[in-house]
């Protein structure tokens, strides 16, 4: 058991690493800790993608009484289980010399060392299974993000308690006091297990919260907005597609085949009228299903969503079955993107995504995607300035005041020319396939493409303010993204041969950990001279504003 004096990094240590192998009667021995045994199960689940196919095969084989598929899937399944067991047995963690050390593997040993003094956040993810077993997935993050951090999947509540007390000092139950050996704020633990009857917070995931500063709730998303967002989204599409494929593959031919039943039941469907009616009905049913699935997904994912700010940390907690708590230090935000899908716009809503750097690069888990990709899944358009001000202190957001510059004057012409050429090509291709009606798609495309060209060119705008670069694009989903000079990593001015002919150029801004926001500040078809001047100005501004890590 780790004694108190060991957690004090200023203490002299009378042992080297070799003493770990010594007989446990040594009082200075550092305890090597394993993850909770149920980690095996969760690890298996996490890696389930690897053996999903054999597993499904096995299941369907079993349903049909087919021995061979069962055997094959079993054979494919065994190594996956073996790997999980291996991973579990070879992972040990310990706290030694003021470092949290996580060892993984035997032959290819991977050691992760996280200095305890730098640990600032401990994020937790708990889904229903986790809660039933009294465990949680723990993610340990450091402040500056330049040190590595660790994910421990899974730890039991008591293990977590032990870890927390070792990291944040034994006296952590006192609010506001700071332990001498620890520089950071003191954390008061708020553990959570199976939902208790007096849990009035609506099930929001409580976590280890620093008490040194008061927290301010920035946003709570009501269920109505989640429903609206779900209706506007396409989340259901993937599920439906996958489900339909499975269904047609395995069930259609059996007694459960719905379409066969329909065939038998309906009158002779030879009249065009009935075909049309039925297809329309089917389409409508599919669309309704899609929307309902979307709503369901949003509710599951973001139920009880709460965004709050404690000092410089933004905290999100949400989730119905899987509780996620994510922490985003404000200074890590590299890129903010406001997405306004046309359906959401009609309802006066939008979503805000961010990109952060300095966190984990590898594992995409639930808290990651909530913290970044789905930062604020749905919010009223009017609320955006207020929220942006919380994300970035000092940012007063007024869209009407942004000095937007349009693209080059002839950008619309260029797009139109592309549209016309594409339509002609399509018509020719259609003609080659079947005449004379093959020309139809191309002819139909022409006005659509011209319309698209007109609006698309107008929809792209660029602006540079005192502290930031802003770019807006998109018609169906309007995306407006902002990044700040100290977050810009590189700048690129580029010209394709077509650009040269049209006297245009493209300006691209590169930031760290780009991607999750689904939008890049890459401004095409800017006027050549303007782009060159901007390039120089941005060079200057970027050089003047150095990144500050906190």
């Amino acid at each position, binding site marked *: 058991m780790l004694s108190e004096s060991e957690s004090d990094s200023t203490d002299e240590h009378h042992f080297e690493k070799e003493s770990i192998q010594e007989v446990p009667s040594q009082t200075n021995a550092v305890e090597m800790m394993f993850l909770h045994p149920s980690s095996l199960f969760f690890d298996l689940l996490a890696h389930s993608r690897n053996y999903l196919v054999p597993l499904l095969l096995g299941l369907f084989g079993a349903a049909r009484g087919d021995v061979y598929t069962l055997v094959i899937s079993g054979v494919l399944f065994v190594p996956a289980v073996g790997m999980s067991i291996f991973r579990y047995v070879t992972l040990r963690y310990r706290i030694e010399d003021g470092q949290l050390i996580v060892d993984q593997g035997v032959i290819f040993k991977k050691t992760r060392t996280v200095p305890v003094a730098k640990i600032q956040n401990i994020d937790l993810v708990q889904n229903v299974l986790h809660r039933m077993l009294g465990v949680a997935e723990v993610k340990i993050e450091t402040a500056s993000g330049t040190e590595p951090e660790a994910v421990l999947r899974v730890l039991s509540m008591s293990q977590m308690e032990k870890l927390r007390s070792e990291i944040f000092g034994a006296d952590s139950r006192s609010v506001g006091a700071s332990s001498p050996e620890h520089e950071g704020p003191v954390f008061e633990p708020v553990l959570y297990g199976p939902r208790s009857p007096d849990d009035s917070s609506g099930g929001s995931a409580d976590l280890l919260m620093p008490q040194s500063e008061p927290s301010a709730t920035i946003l709570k998303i009501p269920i109505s907005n989640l429903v609206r967002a779900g209706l506007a989204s396409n989340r259901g599409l993937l599920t439906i597609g996958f489900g339909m494929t499975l269904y047609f593959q395995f069930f259609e031919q059996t007694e459960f085949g719905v379409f066969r039943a329909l065939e038998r039941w309906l009158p002779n469907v030879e009249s065009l009228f009935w075909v049309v009616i039925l297809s329309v009905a089917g389409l409508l049913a599919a669309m309704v299903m899609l929307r309902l699935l979307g709503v369901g997904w949003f509710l599951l994912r973001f139920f009880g969503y709460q965004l709050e700010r404690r000092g410089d940390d933004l905290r999100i907690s949400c989730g119905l079955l899987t509780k996620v708590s994510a922490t985003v230090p404000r200074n890590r935000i590299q890129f903010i993107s406001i997405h306004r899908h046309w359906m959401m716009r009609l309802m006066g809503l939008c979503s805000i995504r961010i990109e952060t*750097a300095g966190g984990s690069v590898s594992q995409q888990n639930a808290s990651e995607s909530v913290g970044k990709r789905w930062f604020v899944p749905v919010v009223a358009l009017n609320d955006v300035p207020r929220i942006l001000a919380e994300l970035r202190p000092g940012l007063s957001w007024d869209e009407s005041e942004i000095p937007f510059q349009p693209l080059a004057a002839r950008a619309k012409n260029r797009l139109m020319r592309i549209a016309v050429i594409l339509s002609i090509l399509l018509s020719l291709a259609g003609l080659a396939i079947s005449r004379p009606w093959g020309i139809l798609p191309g002819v139909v495309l022409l006005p659509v493409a011209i319309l698209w060209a007109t609006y698309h060119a107008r929809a792209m705008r660029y602006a540079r303010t005192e502290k930031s670069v802003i770019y807006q694009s998109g018609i169906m989903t309007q995306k407006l993204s902002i990044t700040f000079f100290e977050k*810009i*990593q*590189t*700048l*690129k*001015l*580029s*010209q*394709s*041969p077509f650009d*040269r002919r049209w006297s245009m*150029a493209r300006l*691209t801004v*590169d*930031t*760290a*950990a*780009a*991607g999750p926001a689904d939008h*890049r500040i890459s401004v095409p078809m800017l006027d*050549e*001279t303007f782009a*060159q001047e901007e*390039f120089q100005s941005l*060079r*200057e501004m*970027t*050089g003047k504003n*150095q*990144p*500050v*890590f906190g």
Partner: protein
Amino acid sequence: MDYLAEPLARDDPSDDVPGQFRLSDEFSSLDPRHIQVELMVGMITWAIVALGALIGLVVAWFRLGFGIYFYVILGSAVVLLAALAIIAWLWPGIEYRRVSYRIDEEGLEIRRGVIWRHSITIPLGRVQHADVSQGPVQRMFGVGTLTVHTAGTQNASINLEGLAYDHAIVVRDFIVHQRKERDAV
């Protein structure tokens, strides 16, 4: 007005005293030996392609004999190979003229591109680290590649091939030194 089309080579780096490098607004070109490196790589690649074509021709001859189809294939193969050879011969020289770099107050700027042109700039404070490397052909001619790493995503690593090896090391050290000076604590 054509920023990206400006020809380069105002400052020949191989004249610099080794160990010295200074901030300059002027663009420098690569080491001329880089052309030879590219030529050699081009020749080797062409040889491999020609060998593949030869094998293909032999196979075609087996199946078609000396018929008209074979001659058509032979003819087109010869034309293609000749075209490739000409390109491989001329391209390094053309490209050499269109690559340049400079390090000024605002950062490292690299311009390149013959048909598709671009200019990338990295503020000196954003450099994470920089390496110098040498491929086998480069080693023969004494040139190297400077790789600058940033925290960016698309341009996480930016390569500048064709600097004189010693000069590349000088530049690398200079960049790292400049970055340390600008590092905000």
